[in-house]
């Protein structure tokens, strides 16, 4: 099993969710986050005061998937989240040791 963390542009969230649902991913967790990468920030001007905003708002999508759907899932995210412009985000993939469904006590791929 793999754990996917994708940092994407906020307005791409719906498309990513739909793309993941389409390939059978049962659930995702979404968090509003801030950060910086190559896109960098921007400056805001309030009367005479100028502030550099380093951290831009992004959305973090987390999903746990079985190994056999990993490539599909990554492709789905990559395609649906892309605009081709700087700041599209990144996808991180980690090994996932265990999953437990709290209600039933199922474990492993049964719990995905």
């Amino acid at each position, binding site marked *: 099993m793999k754990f996917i963390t994708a940092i994407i542009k906020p307005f791409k969230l719906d498309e990513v969710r739909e793309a993941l649902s389409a390939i059978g991913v049962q659930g995702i967790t979404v968090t509003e986050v801030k950060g910086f990468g190559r896109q960098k920030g921007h400056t*805001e*001007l*309030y*009367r*005479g*005061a100028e*502030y550099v*905003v380093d951290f831009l708002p992004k959305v973090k999508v987390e999903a746990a998937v079985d190994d056999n759907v990993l490539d599909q899932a990554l492709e789905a995210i990559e395609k649906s989240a892309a605009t081709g412009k700087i700041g599209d985000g990144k996808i991180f993939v980690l090994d996932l040791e265990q999953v437990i469904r709290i209600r039933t006590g199922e474990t492993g791929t049964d719990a995905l």
Partner: protein
Amino acid sequence: MKTIHTLLSASLLVGLPAVSGGALAQEAAEAAVEVHKGDVAWIMTATLLVLMMALPGLALFYGGLVRAKNMLSVLMQVMTVFSLNALLFAVYGYSLAFTEGTPFIGSLDKVFLSGVTIDSLADTFTDNVKLPEFAFIAFQATFAGITGALVVGAFAERMKFSAVLIFSVIWFTFCYLPICHMVWGPGGYLLEDGALDFAGGTVVHINAGIAGLVGAYMVGKRIGFGRESMAPHSLTLTMVGASLLWVGWFGFNAGSNLEATSGAALAFINTLFATAAAVLAWSLAEALLKGKPSMLGAASGAVAGLVAITPACGSVGPMGAIVIGTLSGFICLWGVNGLKHMLGADDALDVFGVHGVGGIVGAILTGVFAAPALGGTGGEDFAMGAQVWIQTWSVIVTIVWSAVVAFIAYKIADILVGLRVPEEEEREGLDITAHGESAYRS
């Protein structure tokens, strides 16, 4: 006053008959005295409009500009200072400002409004037309209230609440009241000098702007000023506040005519057009100089235009008002940028840059655009050079008086309770530490 003989020239509230005239004069006057229902209705409406300028107009305009952790402290300071000054105005302010005394301050004859009854009358700009004195007192009390509330923007986000109140009482008593008497009171020094200040450019705006600037210096900069982001937490509320100020300002300016006459209509139309011109001027200048016209700029421009037209609204024509508004938009933008950096004070919400600078621009330009050749209401013997000097002198007197009294008032507050909250409280925010509540819950 001899130079101008028109409506505005009467920009004086002459003493009230009961004060000095004696029984004979009063009887003679009573013969022809008229109280018009329209005037009474208008002045009470105008009073409510000025109240709305402060609460919630000014409170929201300022509140949106601070960080979320200090939102309630600003709303609270505006509300309490307004209330405090209004009450003090009833206790002794009205008497000291609007009874005859010396050229610099009135008498204590009407302390606790003694002698004022439901039948008492106050003068208007027409000899035999009067207003119920209660209505006039209430109208003026709102001016006293909002002037004190304007100052709090300068030292927002770091001043101790008790120090704010102590400062407000002292400054109201020894600065607002004397300047008010000098400009509007019977026998007032600047009034007799011929200064034109229809609705309070010197009394309210320059006065408050200077007190704010002195406060910004004395209270010191906010922790992290220039390093941390102190971006406004809600420009939406700031825009709502600025718009409420604009609407309320019709009571402030047109109400200052006291009667519902053509003079009120002149002040009314000027308040509309000068402000619209200032909104566009500020936005245009920002677009040209900074690349983008901002909502905060448009709202700031509205307030700058309102401030600048305040002294002029009864004595200039609509086209003069548009020029005054346009210039105030440009100059106040400089006031919150170049000038602010030169002054080096953390005037948090630009009380000086907008109200002080806008007030000075308006006061001086009043002397220009009151000229009949420029559409103003000045008489044939109007002398622009002389009037501009008189206006400038009234500005200088106000600046010096307000600065000195403000300095002493802050010093006293500092000695009694200390001006600033401790560093930890400033970092946590005044809402929680001073008032025990939060503006927003997530």
